């Protein structure tokens, strides 16, 4: 193999799937060898950089390395759900009560009409009870000539 490697051959060599010819070529061709080393170096640096980034994070947040107690994010989210639901239920239950309670004092400031009605009703009842005959009969009775009480048998 005299030509330089294609990108696929480089990739195959890199992942360790090179044929015997390709391995031989890599040993012989300094240019392809340097190119492969460059690729290995870049990916190696990337690997190291990612690892160091995670180590940095662990150093900055030591609790991260040994989480105790372990509280999954999803679980944390879920624990809020019942709390929020309870809070909403309480609000829905209490709010109308508060509103009702708020209304009662408001209504207490204007009971006069109610009282007035009640007094009027009581007056009407008193008048009705004090009548000696039914109200519809009063007009008819008033048309009749007045007689002495002894003759009418006590009817006034």
């Amino acid at each position, binding site marked *: 193999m005299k030509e330089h490697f294609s*990108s696929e051959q480089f990739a195959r060599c890199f*992942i360790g799937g090179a044929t015997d010819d390709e391995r031989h070529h890599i040993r012989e061709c300094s240019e392809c060898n340097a190119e492969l080393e460059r690729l290995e170096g*870049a990916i190696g640096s*990337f690997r190291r*950089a990612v690892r160091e980034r*995670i180590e940095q994070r662990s150093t900055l947040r030591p609790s991260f390395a040994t*989480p105790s*107690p372990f509280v999954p994010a999803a679980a944390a989210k879920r624990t809020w759900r019942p709390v929020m639901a309870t809070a909403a239920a309480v609000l829905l239950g209490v709010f109308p009560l508060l509103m009702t309670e708020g209304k009662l004092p408001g209504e207490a400031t204007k009971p006069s009409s109610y009282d007035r009605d009640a007094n009027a009703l009581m007056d009407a009842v008193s008048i009705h009870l004090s009548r000696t005959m039914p109200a519809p009969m009063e007009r008819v009775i008033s048309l009749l000539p007045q007689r002495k009480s002894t003759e009418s048998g006590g009817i006034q």
Partner: protein
Amino acid sequence: MKDSASTGFIAVRMENPAVEIDDFEQLVERYRTRVLRFVFASVRDMDLAETLTQDCFWRMYRHRKAFRGDCTIQSWLMKIAINLIRDHARSRRFQFWKKAERVQSEEIHNWPDRGISPEERAAVNEQVQAVWEATRTLSERQRTVFLLRYVEDLQIGEIAQSTGLTESTVNVHLIRAVRGIKKRLGKLS
């Protein structure tokens, strides 16, 4: 499955997986950094990565009874993480996120690299940025496979378990991913 002890990953095929998963805090301690690393490299935002990592463990905890032990815990966790990342990418939140990506990508500009000269550091930073940007242009599967292989050091078999692909398909995606990254690096030089 190959032993991946060289990567520091404890590839345990458990006798009784439910018992192992019951020790949940230990599992979190052992695997959280790995999951976070993979998620961070995928979504490019640390806060979001932490949220998704927590969701990943939460989902694992909820479905721990369903774990049959036919793959490693890491593979299972990665599978959950991949699904979460995919779900997130499809959500509306991500659409908003994409708009804000430019601002958040600043977070990755200054990679720490100790013991080298400023010039070398600048060159390394440039390379890292190029690879980082290149991973963004890859397809979702190519990116996932690439990150699992070269950031998390998972073996091809473990990647196949995590992604639900065959090993040969994983290899194909991996070759395409590396080609894409090399193309990007070529443009850089």
